[in-house]
């Protein structure tokens, strides 16, 4: 393997990992507040379709991204209303949201199949992208990739050393106690769910506007589910989500690259690689049972009824 090939592999790895990072970071915040939203796939698709439609209508990819975020948030409001306000079963509601999103996005997007948009193109960061190798790998992406790093940094800092991070965790660990010290559990959970929706919508926009600028039904191809699993395997830690997503991306790319290089292995086995590698690495990282338990939001999935 020559340097150019490796550079390209790493470049593609980052691109492949980005939608997973966006979805998984959103879901992580959501789950840290104690809400399990299985509606990722539906929210991603709604973000993808509305983002694409907005791009077509306005002719601006930027508006498309905003619309995608908005679509994800709308979906999550629906989820929040049912699961937080009406205290419905979170698992069932999330699954319903996915089915709803898949169907509704197909319905809305039916007239937009086969249309082409300009999409978001790469933005090479001045100076930084001139660095040999590293510049090509890290600093020649589209703006959404940089945005994913920014969001990662913010969340990492938020849960490491801010009051907001502590508040969200408190609500996810023990909502009654949080309520007792004056935290509005409902507000925090709504906020977290909304953030999760916005991130899923953004990931959808990334797929339909930046990655493969087109709309076709079900184009997320299960990424919402992979991201959901990633959150758990990453023990609700932002840095492990980043690692896991890139690992998954790298293995996905290797599945394709190795075949082209004439590597004699069953492509079915290679296709399994991303899943196997990610799970193994993250499970090994989480092998300390006590620490893992500490990072698990204890009240995850449990409905909270405010005492009146």
């Amino acid at each position, binding site marked *: 393997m020559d340097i150019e*090939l490796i550079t*390209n592999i790493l470049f*593609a790895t980052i*691109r*492949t990992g980005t*939608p997973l990072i966006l979805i998984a970071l959103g879901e992580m915040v959501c789950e840290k507040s104690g809400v399990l939203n299985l509606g990722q796939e539906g929210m991603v698709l709604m973000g993808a379709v509305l983002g694409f439609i907005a791009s077509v209508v306005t002719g601006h990819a930027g508006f498309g991204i905003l619309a995608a975020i908005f679509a994800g948030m709308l979906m999550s409001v629906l989820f929040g209303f049912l699961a937080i306000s009406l205290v419905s079963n979170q698992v069932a509601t999330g699954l319903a949201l996915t*089915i*709803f999103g898949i*169907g*509704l996005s*197909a*319905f809305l*997007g*039916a*007239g937009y*199949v*086969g*249309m*082409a948009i300009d999409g978001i193109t790469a933005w090479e960061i001045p100076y930084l992208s001139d660095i040999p190798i590293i510049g090509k790998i890290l600093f020649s992406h589209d703006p959404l990739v940089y945005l994913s790093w920014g969001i990662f940094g913010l969340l990492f800092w938020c849960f490491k050393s801010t009051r907001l991070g502590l508040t969200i965790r408190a609500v996810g660990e023990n909502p009654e106690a949080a309520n007792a010290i004056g935290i509005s559990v409902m507000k925090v959970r709504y906020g977290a769910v909304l953030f999760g929706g916005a991130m899923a919508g953004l990931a959808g926009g990334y*797929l339909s506007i930046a*990655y*493969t*600028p*087109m709309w*076709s*039904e*079900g*184009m997320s*191809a*299960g*990424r919402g589910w992979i991201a959901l699993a990633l959150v758990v395997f990453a023990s609700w830690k932002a840095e492990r989500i980043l690692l896991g997503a890139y690992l998954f991306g790298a293995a*996905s*790319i290797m*599945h*394709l*690259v190795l*075949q*082209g*290089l*004439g590597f*004699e292995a*069953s*492509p*079915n086995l*290679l*296709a399994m690689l991303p899943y196997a590698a990610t799970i193994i690495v993250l499970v090994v990282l989480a092998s300390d049972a006590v620490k893992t338990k500490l990072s698990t939001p204890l009240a995850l999935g449990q409905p909270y009824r405010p005492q009146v």
Partner: protein
Amino acid sequence: MIRLAEKRLSKKGSTLTKLLTAATLAVSCNVASAADPLKVGFVYVGPTGDAGWTYAHDEGRKYMVDQLGDQVETTFVESVAEGADSERVIRQMAAKGHDLIFTTSFGYMNPTLKVAKRFPKVKFEHATGYKRGKNTGTYFARAYQGRYLTGLIAGKMTESNVIGYVASFPIPEVIRGINAFTKGAQEVNPDVKVKVVWASTWYDPAKEREAAETLILQGADILTQHTDSAAVIQAAQSKGKFAIGYHSDMSPYGAKAHLTATIHNWGALYTQKAKSVLDGTWKSEDLWPGIAEGVTDLAPLNDAIPADVKALVMAKKQEIKEGKARVFDGPVLNQAGEEVVPAGQSMSDNDLKGFNWYVNGVEGQLPKS
């Protein structure tokens, strides 16, 4: 189905639930009606707007309606999951008095046969399957003939002599396509190599795009695909390479890159089948029409293709149409360069349906599926 649902909903008048129902229920529509027309039903695996497989079938349905007018009345149900769901939909269609039902995905094979047994008077036609019954026929298109013609174009136009092929799963249908394409390319350019990358999915635009870029990185200057989205065309367009589509004309996704595409025209077949039911000559058979019947065809050729290549393709197409030539006429060589089919002979349909080896010119080993 949707009419019933709408009636019920209009009482409640809730827009949200209406949307929900419209989106999650399979949508069925009624087209045309006359005194006692033949009721023809279609079961689709994807949405009619997928610009691919299902789109082509629905175009076929529309063509049939155009041809037969008041003699037929058609219904379709789209996005029907293979398996138990499809059995329910097919049974409902049969029970509602359809005379002829087309089920258009491989996974509908057993459900179709099961329902067919219960409704002996209804005629069933299953696409891509291999099991038939008294009132169940099968049909498929010789898409490989189109592949062969596009292979000629690719072989003539490649400069790097590496052509990339994004494939889904190593089953005979896909291998047949790769072989036909490679044989075409090899006939006009013995130096050409076809590199295959198995994406291990029928549909994942992002992954198809990465597969395409991987192939470009490894020297391919022309790409083609046997997956369902147009991501490969897009990747080629953005990298300034050429690509050949499949299922339908994919030029909207990359007008510059899109050389042509192998497309399916099911209309002629559907019209013929409906006619045979109307005049009572329908029988259960295995139909495998291709270019000669107009079921397999090419999308309009890009102007980037030189005139002499266009002429060559048209000439070959004519020969296949008239039965003067077949795609797998000997000599057919395997990867090792050994002659498997000698000159003067041709591969039988049975051989083609069980293809499990690569022809000369395909790079890499065929994975054991």
